[in-house]
């Protein structure tokens, strides 16, 4: 009996299939009461699916679930909440138009005797919970006005208000600054002291090793192993995640740099609506043929805004000069930039890149359809001929040319979008966080691709939220903070510490 009580969560033989894929295959896992248990794995390894089963979002096809020794079956998240399991999703699920207190008690609003909402109690209780978390957020604030890190604390307060004893956090730090990450780590320590069990999904090894007691590794929907933190190393865990050892080598040995292809001088963007868009102040840089320029910076530093302004995709007016191959340009629409040989792979592939209703071929050919016209009409054959070449070169893995784009892995989808632009024969390639949400193996392939493109004389501007990636790929790195360029490093000068210092300059 006592032994059973020590196990907070037991999952046995969990199997879950989605159309065409086995997301989880016979996964067995035990989580002890009061521990921080990290779940590691590449994208698509099944981490999120497993956690969604634990929190009642999905129902398993087979296998059983025990919470505190009791066999349970969750048909909805409500069932899971009643059993004391709360999940904090990667994409936060707050209602932005409501106050903090209203969000904390959403669906379980305190009521007066007459059945009306009792805001006073909600506020007081929310204040208590936020106090526990050491958060300086007013319960009356609108959620939309909060920073991402604070919104996350609201989610945690919500979990606490459910009296959840098991809290699942799905990659909570992906959008946080260093200070916010530190605060979250303190919060986790507090929660643990109060007896909460925490399941922590992450693929950032440093975090995992700072926080977790034990680590479970999933790969391709299977349980690889569960180890004590003290008995393993980061590279061993990464190896288990990928199924092979990843050698971190630096790409792009020194090479001669060509002529300057893109020069940006004193780029300024006035913020359109005061809250959302970032202002840019006098951003200047140049990129040469055969060179990768990295742009480092925290979220909201203005990296994306710079690329959008150059590409003609920005909604706000900009000042300054942008010259492409020595000629001053000002693109009003992405199509103008594309014609001039400058293209951009946008951040957030799903929202801004792919067309889910079009197949693989159609997704790649969308920018070069005029080359596929035969006798005045679009020829499917010509289209597939055009697409086949970059698909071969880049090595896109797809069931067929006419497969739905949604069947491809994130890495292959990203390759499709890069191929789309390569077909327009660009000189300058802007890559906005191209490896976000892509698994480790596919990342390595993308790095090689970027390297090859560079050697063929393309100028590449790359932004990334992961510093090791920038350090691996870039010849030079500029660092941005709050819309300004705060530092520039050559490949040899750059290291993570210097970049972080420059990125947090206010």
């Amino acid at each position, binding site marked *: 009996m006592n032994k059973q009580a020590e196990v907070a969560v037991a999952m046995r033989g969990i199997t879950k299939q989605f*159309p*065409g894929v086995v997301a989880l295959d016979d996964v067995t896992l035990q989580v002890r009461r009061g521990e921080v248990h990290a779940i590691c794995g590449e994208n698509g390894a099944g981490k999120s699916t497993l956690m969604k089963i634990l929190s009642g979002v999905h129902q398993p096809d*087979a296998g*059983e679930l025990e919470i505190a020794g009791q*066999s349970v*079956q969750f048909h909805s998240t409500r069932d899971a909440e009643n059993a004391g399991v709360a999940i904090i999703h990667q994409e936060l699920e707050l209602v932005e138009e409501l106050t903090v207190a209203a969000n904390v008690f959403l669906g379980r609003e305190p009521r007066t005797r007459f059945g009306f909402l009792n805001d006073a109690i909600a506020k007081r209780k929310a204040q208590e919970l936020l106090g526990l978390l050491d958060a300086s957020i007013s319960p009356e604030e609108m959620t939309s006005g909060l920073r991402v890190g604070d919104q996350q604390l609201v989610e945690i307060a919500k979990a606490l208000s459910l009296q959840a004893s098991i809290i699942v956090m799905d990659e909570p730090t992906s959008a946080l600054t260093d200070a916010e990450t530190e605060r979250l780590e303190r919060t986790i320590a507090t929660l643990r002291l109060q007896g909460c069990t925490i399941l922590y999904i992450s693929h950032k090894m440093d975090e995992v090793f700072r926080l977790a007691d034990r680590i479970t590794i999933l790969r391709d929907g299977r349980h690889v192993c569960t180890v004590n933190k003290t008995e393993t190393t980061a590279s061993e865990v990464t190896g288990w995640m990928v199924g092979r050892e990843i050698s971190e080598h630096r790409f792009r040995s020194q090479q001669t740099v060509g002529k300057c292809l893109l020069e940006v001088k004193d780029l300024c963007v006035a913020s359109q609506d005061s809250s959302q868009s970032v202002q840019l102040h006098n951003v200047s840089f140049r990129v040469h043929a055969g060179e990768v320029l990295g742009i480092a910076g925290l979220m909201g530093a203005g990296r994306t805004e710079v690329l959008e302004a150059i*590409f003609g*995709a920005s909604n706000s007016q900009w000042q300054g000069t942008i010259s492409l191959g020595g000629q001053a340009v000002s693109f009003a*629409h*992405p*199509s103008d*930039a*594309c014609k001039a040989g400058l293209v*951009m792979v*946008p951040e957030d592939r799903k*929202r*801004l*890149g*792919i*067309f*889910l*209703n*079009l*197949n693989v071929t*159609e997704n790649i050919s*969308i*920018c070069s*359809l*005029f080359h596929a*016209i035969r006798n005045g*009409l*679009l020829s499917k054959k010509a289209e597939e001929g055009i697409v*086949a070449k970059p*698909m*071969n070169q880049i*090595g*896109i*893995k*797809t*069931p*067929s040319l*006419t*497969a*739905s784009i949604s*069947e491809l892995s994130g890495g292959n989808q990203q390759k499709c979008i890069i191929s*789309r632009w390569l077909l327009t024969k660009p000189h300058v390639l802007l890559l906005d966080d191209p490896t976000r949400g892509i698994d480790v193996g596919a990342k390595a392939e993308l790095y090689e691709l970027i390297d090859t493109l560079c050697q063929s004389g393309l100028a590449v501007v790359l932004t990334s939220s992961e510093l090791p990636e920038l350090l691996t790929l870039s010849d030079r790195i500029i660092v941005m903070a709050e819309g300004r360029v705060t530092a520039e490093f050559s490949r040899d000068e750059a290291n993570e510490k210097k970049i972080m210092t420059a990125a947090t300059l206010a």
Partner: protein
Amino acid sequence: MKLWSPFPLHALRRWWPSQNEWSLLVAIVLAIVLTALVDSNHTYFFRPFESLRDIARNSAMLGIFSLGAAVVIIAGGIDLSSGSMIALSGTVCSVTMLALAPTEMMAFKPVGSAVVFIAVLASLLTGFFVGTLHTWLITVVRLPPFIATLATLVGLRSFARALCESSTAVLTPTKSALINVADPAFKVVRDNVWFSVVTFLVLAFFTWLMLSRTVLGRHLKALGGNEQAARLAGIHTENVKWFAYCFGAMTAALAGLFYIANESVAAPVNQGRGHELNAIAAAVVGGCSLSGGVGTVQGTVLGAFFLRVVIDAVSKIIKTGADVYEGLIVGVVVVLAVTFAQGVNGLRHDRRILPGSLGLCTIPVLALLAGSLASMTTGAASGVAAGFTAFIALVALRIWENRSHDKKAQVSNSQ
């Protein structure tokens, strides 16, 4: 080439749309056969050509502007104004004829082909203007398409009525809400059904060609699938939208010409009233997704045909006053068709039809609906019987569903 195929899902997916169209075809045949059998006059047996002509004319008229609705929906928008556009188009056409040849029009005499030509052109141009207005409201003023075309749905009909009244006040002795159209060109169109059918089929062919074999068509689908990605891929999304809304309004304008030909009168008060929803229904039944990016011309053609066949079937079976039930039929067909199309996914999740307290409340609603329908069409006694039977059946279904659901839960618990 590296081809990797764990599961031939793509083959299945490519087959899907045609499967939807196959099931529509089967449903059409079923509806026709059933009507032929159930109809006590057996009209389909004794006067097949007459029946075919009616259905063909009605399907063609609905089909013409359903194609427009489908293109707008595929482009990720919605056009609620096509019914009012039909009224406006007819009014513009007859007002133009009245203005150019007032004496002939008032005497119900031929106005001459040149005048007819100019009038038709004026109608189509009006369609272009309305489409342009829609695009401006949506892309520049940034109204949601639903709001922009809701405004014109209300506004254009009123505009058409005002145009009709004020121009008749000036051009004829008395102000009128109708303009009679007696030119032989329109009579020919009315008396020869193939005119509208051929127009419809030719339009359908070119729409199909445009959607599947041109860059514009691909851009329409891309726009409907993901507008932001389309812009970032260098597509001038405003221009593509402009085309879509003009196509929607101009097909409605074209349909408006057939309406006045058929009825020999331009009547802006009620011509085409509510028909925009039939067009949207035809597109949706034909497989267009209201979230955009998905849909075919073949499906839309079949969808329009199916709607008209079912409406005709009911009018054959109940004989008189069937037009009262038209909206009801369209509503039921849309619900059933879309449910059927989603069915494969719906059944997979062990979904109950009457779950919880919502299901409990739905039982009397559905029983009342069945009972009142039956009593209105066949008499009070059978109506009560039908309602009662439906009620018993639904209660039984509810009990059965609850039982099997509990059993499943038990089985998976004990595993």
